[in-house]
């Protein structure tokens, strides 16, 4: 099992009711897409937000990442809405 830090920001943090959690990834979860599949199993808001109907962005170790990016052990994985700074 690989351990990761999962972070949520802005609207996603509020809707999901969590800003940070520590998560152990099963061996079958290698990529960002796999992780989204895992989180969608929580159903409710999780499936609604991360199931593909709404836009979100993912960063691995503070770099923007695509759905097919691999998640290294010990990674900091952040999930957040499209950014609106500037």
């Amino acid at each position, binding site marked *: 099992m690989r351990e990761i830090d999962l972070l949520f920001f*802005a*609207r996603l943090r509020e809707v999901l009711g969590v800003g940070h959690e520590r998560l152990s990834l099963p061996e079958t979860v290698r990529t960002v897409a796999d992780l989204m599949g895992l989180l969608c199993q929580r159903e409710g808001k999780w499936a609604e937000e991360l199931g593909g109907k709404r836009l979100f962005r993912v960063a691995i170790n503070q770099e923007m990442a695509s759905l097919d990016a691999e998640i290294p052990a010990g990674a900091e994985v952040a999930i957040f809405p499209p950014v609106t700074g500037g």
Partner: protein
Amino acid sequence: MTNSVSVQSESFDLAAEYRQFGADDAGIGAVVAFVGRVRDLNLDRNVVALSLEHYPGMTEKALQRIADEAAIRWPLNAVRVVHRVGDLKPTDDIVLVLTASPHRKDAYEANQFIMDYLKTRAPFWKKEHGVDGEARWVDARDSDYSALERWEHALKTNWGIVDHD
């Protein structure tokens, strides 16, 4: 080549930033300063306050990366980016981008490039607080993504560079 970024809750001082910005570099012919400010009207809704959430650590990295990329693509003497976080009100400054170059075209283009990338890549999120007391997260604008695509198309066409996302 100085190339610095800051994320801060305090307001920035345009005059002080400009003074420190390559003041004695006589190779600079053009300086472009962009200041983004809080507007009171957003989609016909009166906004009385704005709060800016960010992803500490990643914001600084993202801004530095954007500034560095601009400095690779254009002949710049200096780049400075300051982005505020926390609670703001209408007319407050949010973001400052300074670019300096021997020629104006490069200073303008690099400045726009930085803002277009910042708007779509730097992890900041705006929450508007209306007169009615309700708070609402601001939606990302499609026009910000088309602004970005313009650069990516230009980069791919001119230099064959693939987007780093």
